[in-house]
């Protein structure tokens, strides 16, 4: 850890803070932004997210070492935090800060991508079921019932066990594919309630074909809960990835993810607690921020929330 790395770290911290505050100042005019930032923690949460995203993007600049470099497998094993290694080192003498920084890339990417899969699938199913009703609705919703009837971790463990070695893409995909059930219900409910609205009828009366009605009139207005559930979804995927890693299936080593960092450190939790503490806190912080942002978004995207 050279002064340069400290400088970059501080710069990113400052950038995140300025970014969050700037965003608040810059959007002061809009109602949605005002509702968003009315939440006491919203600006802070945005700052936290920005910080981690920046760190992930600039990982090579922030990380003092190669995240999978085993620096000195005997002398530097499980060292507590120090100036050289601000978060300490792990069992393999790897620098935890570097791992945390690169792990942010993986964890955030897995969270975002899996959530995208889940949300888009959920949205499509929800739209179809909600808009076309009748048998389509019946069939799709029964499918959802089945999906919801097995605890997700269970489903995931089984699904993941289909691969003896789990490529990251498959991990993302399976997490996504087991995560859309609730979203599809949400979207369906939203569509059902919008379907009857006068402006949807107006579009139909004007002769707009179903695809146009769905894409221009129904979907955009059902998108607010979708965005909120996406924000919350990233967090829950990150937690899930950590849980899977804990159970021994997750992102393959040596690629660091916050989940497998905790898993790597769990055997040293009594003797070298810092190895699990920093990734654990990172997850908590980001998931908290995502939830805070989700809450704030819920208000921001719903003009009816003016009073509460």
């Amino acid at each position, binding site marked *: 850890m050279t002064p340069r790395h400290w400088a970059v770290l501080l710069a990113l911290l400052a950038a995140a803070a300025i970014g969050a505050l700037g965003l608040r100042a810059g959007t002061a005019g809009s109602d949605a932004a005002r509702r968003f930032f009315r939440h006491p923690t919203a600006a802070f949460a945005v700052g936290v997210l920005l910080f981690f995203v920046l760190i992930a993007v600039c990982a090579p600049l922030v990380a003092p070492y190669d995240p999978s470099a085993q620096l000195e497998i005997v002398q530097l094993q499980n060292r507590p935090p120090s100036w050289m290694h601000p978060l300490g080192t792990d069992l393999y003498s790897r620098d935890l800060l570097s791992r945390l920084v690169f792990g942010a890339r993986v964890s955030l990417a897995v969270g975002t991508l899996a959530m995208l899969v889940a949300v888009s699938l959920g949205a499509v199913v929800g739209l179809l079921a909600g808009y076309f009703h009748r048998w389509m609705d*019946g069939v799709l919703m029964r499918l959802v019932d089945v999906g919801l009837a097995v605890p997700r971790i269970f489903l995931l463990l089984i699904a993941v066990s289909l691969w003896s070695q789990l490529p990251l893409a498959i991990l993302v995909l399976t997490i996504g594919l087991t995560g859309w059930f609730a979203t599809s219900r949400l979207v369906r409910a939203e569509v059902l309630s919008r379907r009857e609205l*006068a*402006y949807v009828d107006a579009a139909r009366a004007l002769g707009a074909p179903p695809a146009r009605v769905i894409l221009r009139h129904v979907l955009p207005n059902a998108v607010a809960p979708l965005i909120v559930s996406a924000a919350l979804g990233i967090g829950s995927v990150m937690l899930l990835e950590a849980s899977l890693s804990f159970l021994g299936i997750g992102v393959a080593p040596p690629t660091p993810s916050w989940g497998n960092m905790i898993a790597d450190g769990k055997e040293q939790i009594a003797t070298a607690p810092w190895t699990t503490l920093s990734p654990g806190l990172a997850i908590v912080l980001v998931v908290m921020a995502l939830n805070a942002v989700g809450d704030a978004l819920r208000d921001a995207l719903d003009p009816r929330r003016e009073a509460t």
Partner: protein
Amino acid sequence: MSAPLVDVRNLVKHYPGERAWLGLGRPRRVVRAVDGVSFAITPGQTLGLVGESGCGKSTVGRTILRLQEPTAGQVVIDGREVFTLGARELRALRRRMQIVFQDPYSSLNPRMTVRQTLREPLAIHRLAAGAGADAKVAALLEEVGLDSRLARSYPHELSGGQRQRVGIARALSVEPAFLVCDEPVSALDVSVQAQVLNLLMDLQQQRRLTYLFIAHDLAVVKHIAEQVAVMYLGKIVELAPAAELYLAPRHPYTRSLLSAVPVPDPAAQKQRIVLTGDVPSPASPPPGCPFHPRCPHPKKNQRCRTEVPALRAVVPGQLAACHFAEEPM
């Protein structure tokens, strides 16, 4: 009198209740929202459709435009039979018939500006594009009495009256001949209501529009309609030219409805006929004359309870569905 532009014959719309077996089985307990409604509207004229909440007015309007599939009946608009059209022909016919909604808050897509809202029909029917479309939007806005600068606004930035005008402009954009106005002024304040009513009447004049004007306010209907149909529980109970209907209502329901409307004149307070009870649910309509449980007619008897009165001409041009339409109350 010329041939009617809109001819509705024995229109029936039943809503199925919930379905058994995971939503795939047979439906239970139908709601008879519209139960055999017939009328015709002459080109350039207005038929007012009045009745209490839930009597099926909106369903008539929506079904005629095939926003909902009918259960039975026939509707001929412009010589074409609406219920038998395929998707493509129907889309073409949609240029001839349009609808204006009651709720100025839900009838505009909150995420589209006025311009986007008004350009959409032009795009769907390929009527205009680019600068042509913008010009058309400006013209439409002007026609409904709105400043063309409003084109960039979102619905929530507009007042109720302005929204209603945008809704009308949207309906007019495809140059229809027939307009269903589903309670277009009920949600508006009196002062604004007057503005919109005036606008609708002006437009009718200029464009020779034909209106099906749905309302629950008899005074408003009196103002705008040449013909008036009174609905009760999915059926038309009285159908007559406005002048006759307001002067000499034949159905006891029409009479009590008229008497219940408050008149803004303390001097002219008349005797109200206060009906007892509520409108029954269309899911379980009473047998016989649907109005008989609330009917104040002195002659009400067993026949009313068992026999459904037909809609018949009591005097030429004035139809009523009451066994005792001829008798005074």
